[in-house]
């Protein structure tokens, strides 16, 4: 089954890391991604730029509007995501627990939803 692991983090906390600490987190994350790829779990892993770089799009009554930043004001914000293949929810949770970002932020594990065309 396929799951999204959505990585949330408080950006001020992330930006407050020393260069060495930040680089260690990056290295650990990349090694973990490589490990997940080797073991056939990784579909895609991607870090994201900070929320201030985002634009949010909505279409209402046929008109597009866009606003700066993410939709909701929350303390923890989306910092990246992994798409993984796992046998079941428990395996997906275990893989998420092994992600280095889980030590500084939190990871939401969500099963893919299978859309069915009529």
């Amino acid at each position, binding site marked *: *089954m396929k799951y999204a692991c959505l990585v949330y983090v408080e950006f001020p906390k992330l930006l407050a890391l020393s260069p060495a600490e930040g680089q260690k987190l990056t290295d*650990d994350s990349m*090694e973990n991604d490589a*490990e997940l790829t080797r*073991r*056939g779990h990784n579909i895609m892993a991607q870090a994201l730029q900070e929320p201030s770089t985002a634009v949010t799009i909505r279409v209402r009554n046929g008109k597009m509007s866009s606003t700066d930043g993410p939709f909701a004001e929350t303390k923890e914000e989306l910092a990246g995501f992994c798409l993984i293949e796992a*046998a*079941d*929810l*428990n*395996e997906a*949770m*275990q893989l998420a627990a092994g992600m280095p970002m889980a030590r500084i932020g939190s990871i939401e594990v969500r*099963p893919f939803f299978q859309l069915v065309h009529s």
Partner: protein
Amino acid sequence: MATPEDWPARIAAVYRADRGRILASLVRLLGSFELAEEALHDAFAAAVEQWPARGLPDSPWRWLVSAGRFRTIDRLRRRARLDAARVELVHRLETDALGGDDAMAEPASLEDDSLRLIFTCCHPVLPPDAQAALTLREVCGLTTEEIAAAFLTGAPTVAQRIVRAKARIREAGLPYEVPEAAALPERLESVLRVVYLVFNEGYSAEPEGAAGRRDLAIEAIRLGRLLCDLLPDPEALGLLALMLLQHARRAARTTPAGDLVPLSEQDRGLWDQDQLREGLGLLARAYAGREIGPYWLQAAIAGEHARAKTAAATDWQRIVELYDLLLAADPSPVVELNRAAAIALRDGPAAGLPLLDGLLARGDLADYQLAFAARADLLRQLGRTAEAGRDYRQALALARRPADRRFLERRLGALD
């Protein structure tokens, strides 16, 4: 030699047949559920890579246990560079693996691993629902999502139950072992209770809601067989007999539309003769053991029904005697209720009614729809229609499954 496209199917067949015992051995060798599950995954990945080129190993499952074990050690060695706490673990696992321990050499010890896994999953320190979830996932290989669907619960709930159970096992430092003789009866009781709980969950599943649900009754029978192979205790045999004798009636128990058919009205030609024969054989085999217990007695009652060619030919005298023994061995209001119903069938409704009245007056079965339905049946047979109607309505108010409700509505409708 297999053609290339055969390999995925062959490896999948090995997975289905041997996943349980491979995992069981890996849990022992690696000392942790999490590491063992990762190792299981890695072992099958290795098989996919290597078997097509090298051919099927002599003993695929031994090969897989070994591959899982060594891949895990490699992986931990890589991770140990990041995490000093793992260095010690890697060292210990390497010493075990390279020190020529006889863990892999001894077939008896490998067979015991499956039993160890069952006893650990059903350890009494875990809550009963966690025991069932863990057993279904680790021993039967169901996914968290399948377990959740079978128990009509959300997957996150089941997932957390499993995570907490594993944490409890780790924190309590539960030894991964088959209990010693002195502790065995109590621990086995816990295992049998889980198997029976799983069976009942499958047995009472809505026939019409079955789409996409794994059949828990069949999983429970598979568990029961495994247990009887590894530990042919009389009660384990009795439980397997009970499950087979009940499961044999499955096709006759509901109409194609999903309506319930009571035992007395079932088409006995639809009963599965192979399962009945096997169940009766197990009963005889268990009876040859030293002692009989509650599961054997329940199976013996089911066996009496199996033996009767028609409902009218049922030996109610013998069934009442078995209920007497069951009541002595494992007293409960539900057993009393069934005994009273059997007495009514032996001696007539007027003989059973006072027993049911007394039982209901005690209040133990105030929420149990079958108690009211049983009394309503007796009142109906005695021509006391108004009272029967009241009890059917009471049963209806307590019934939750649509099939039960339809059955009671039909009974109620037939009164007028």
